[in-house]
């Protein structure tokens, strides 16, 4: 193929764990096939390009920017805004960029509380002069700078306009490959679409689906550590808070196959704007109790409801960052 016609791709990571990078590397031989038809213009983890190289490109000079990780530092904001300007298509890759991910649960606390605990109050810390990392530091030899830790973690679409999403923590090789194929095919779906995954719920793709009763009726939820489920029966029917019915499929139900409930990392199905609210309404619909006391009993073991229904999506919910824990 003529290199002039190759699709120009940029990869970037924000407050990421590196798992999304590993997921791309895990494409293995397929990655090499993809690399034959694309031209990577920016991938800090793998190739030597500097931000200035991106700045020099014309606006729209990148065909696709694939960005993972939530926005947690001032530098992340700077880079993704630049990538937006330079890219025709921006893809939020993985749960953190898509919905906030697990690092988004930090939004339950203020920035000050996090800094205070991590650098002053954690039991192993010895910090008598109350030193905190600072954006500008005068040392005995000169000035040093650090990027700012922002007030909250944001998914990508709260900082820049996002065209498509690839879900999962991390996205599986199959989902990643399908998404890339779609992007390279030229037949682009409607803006805002989720690429590579299923239109059905995890539940509809689950090997235990046949054992799911027509009408779920839960008297009392149970937590995974508290009992040993029958591995051949629907986990939800056994009282485990499995989010398979409200979560987008594409993961091949890998958690359920290991006898653990779905925790929602692939995010909501089409046309759902708040994953946690959707999960809550579903939970409410399957509780088999008559009165308030009964409902309290049914949900009794689930003490951390926020952590269950918003495990991967707190910063993308309708309430945004308004849900805060009492400072202790």
């Amino acid at each position: 193929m003529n290199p002039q016609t190759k699709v120009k791709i940029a990869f970037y990571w924000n407050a990421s764990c590196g798992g999304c990078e590993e997921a791309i590397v895990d494409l293995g031989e397929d990655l090499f096939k993809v690399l034959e038809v694309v031209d990577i213009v920016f991938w800090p983890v793998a190739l030597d390009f500097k931000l200035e190289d991106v700045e020099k490109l014309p606006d729209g000079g990148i065909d696709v920017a694939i960005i993972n990780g939530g926005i947690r530092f001032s530098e992340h904001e700077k880079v993704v805004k630049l990538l937006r300007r330079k890219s025709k298509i921006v893809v939020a890759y993985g749960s953190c960029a898509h919905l906030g991910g697990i690092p988004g649960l930090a939004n339950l606390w203020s920035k000050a509380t996090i800094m205070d605990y991590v650098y002053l109050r954690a039991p192993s810390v010895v910090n008598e002069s109350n030193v905190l990392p600072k954006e500008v530091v005068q040392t005995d030899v000169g000035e040093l700078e650090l990027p700012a830790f922002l007030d909250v973690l944001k998914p990508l679409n709260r900082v820049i306009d996002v065209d498509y999403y690839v879900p999962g923590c991390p996205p599986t090789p199959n989902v990643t490959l399908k998404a890339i194929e779609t992007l390279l095919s030229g037949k682009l779906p409607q803006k805002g679409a989720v690429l590579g995954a299923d239109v059905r719920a995890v539940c509809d793709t689950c090997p235990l689906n046949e054992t799911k009763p027509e009408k779920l009726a839960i008297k009392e939820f149970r937590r995974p550590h508290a009992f040993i489920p029958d591995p051949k029966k629907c986990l939800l029917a056994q009282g485990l808070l499995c989010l398979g019915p409200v979560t987008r499929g594409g993961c091949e139900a890998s958690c359920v196959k290991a006898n653990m409930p779905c925790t929602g990392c692939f995010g909501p199905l089409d046309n759902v704007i708040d994953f946690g609210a959707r999960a809550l309404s579903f939970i409410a619909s399957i509780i088999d109790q008559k009165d308030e006391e009964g409902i309290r009993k049914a949900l009794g073991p689930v003490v951390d409801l926020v952590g269950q229904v918003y495990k991967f999506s707190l910063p993308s919910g309708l309430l945004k960052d308004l849900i805060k824990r009492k400072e202790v």
Partner: protein
Amino acid sequence: MVVVTINPITRLEGHGKISIFLDEKGDVKRAFLQVPELRGFEKIAVGRHAEDMPQITSRICGVCPWAHHMAATKALDDLYKVKPPSAAVKIRELAYNIFMLEDHSLHFFVLAGPDFVVGPKAPRAERNIIGVMKKLGAETVKKIVLIRKKLREADAILGGKTIHPVSGLPGGVSKSLTEDDRKELVKVADAGLELADTAYKLLKDLMKNEEYVKLMTSDIYVHETYYMGLVDDKNRVNFYDGKIRVVDPKGREHAKFDVHDYLKYIAEHVEPWTYTRMSYLRTVGWKGLIDGEGSGVLAVGPLGRLNAADGMATPRAQAAYEEMYSALGGKPTHYTLAYHIARVVEMIQAAECVKELVEDPEITSPEVRNLPTLTPDVGIGVVEAPRGTLIHHYEADEKGLIKKANLIVATQNNVARMCLSIEKAAKMLIKGGVVDDGLLNMVEMAFRAYDPCFACATHSVVGRIPLKIEMYDHEGRLIKVITNVD
């Protein structure tokens, strides 16, 4: 004042930088390694169901998710005071040794490989995975890639997922191993042994290369520090369990303790110019970024573990261990580049453990869970992550809700020594304002030996950390640019 800034281009713009300050004569005054990374997992944990910790904390690192998953799972055993059935422990150890082998092999072949195989002084354009392919042959490299893939798939069988596994629960694992799967794993185990052997052979050739040995043992790469790692009841290296042992710079046992006492021995220091906390030995004290017996700076990871132990737990690894110390002039060894040798010795032990475990008849027992019955209170768990000792400490209420969490992450234990390594390389190589062109490679090698986790940079597919040094004069004019990429 001249400031030299080295940006590791990988994880650049938000993931790490080195700044070097020169005095009027152009000699190095100080060098800083800054890590701008904070997500607040210790607060994220608070208010969560305790049993969610193995899945939540694995998100600290997608390169070593198994380390956090396992440390958290062991902390949950302790939180509920529930002992897993023997088969569950074996499944965990199997998964963990597979992970250790796979992670170490990526570092050895892909990242450090170019230095070993192609040579530390080879032209930069050849010091990458493609250069490795040329020397070893494409077939060998393909085979290495394939074995690594198999190891990752094996961990998906055991943990549900390779990246961010889900199987860890207090008192066991969520999934037992079927006989069919076990048969598959036997093949993987054989391939794993082959992988470790290939690495070992490469290493032996390397140790015959006088030039490399000279570099490895040169003063640039020496720091006399304390060393720490988990040991079994015979003081042999163990990745999954045991007591934490610390030796002093002379190799004498300084401490040996149960992880429940970690706060008596380990403390953390905060600097305003970086977001990482730096561990040190509380029993010795923080004396600043200096080495020696009077400074509490310690080293963990492959070299820390081997120095802190009396030997390896498996026969072939033990033989390799003896060979390593005899080649390096005895124990402990303070050469930072010996991390690479120690890593290969550990690959052999991990591969031997995998082989032994897949052939254990008990591994397919369906008894893989004991249910917790006691009220949770405090749980502390420890494992050896590939990059060093990793401790998870939780406090929970009676409903199993986390009230407090403290995490001592492997790279935090090493970060003070890494700062020393970078400063020393800089001081020895920059004189009178002249930056030796070898500096880049030298700094890169000092940094890379630790396989630092904050810069997942080190898992670069091009097999090196691309660096760029920019030198400015006192008026801010760019006077020199050196880069290791063409």
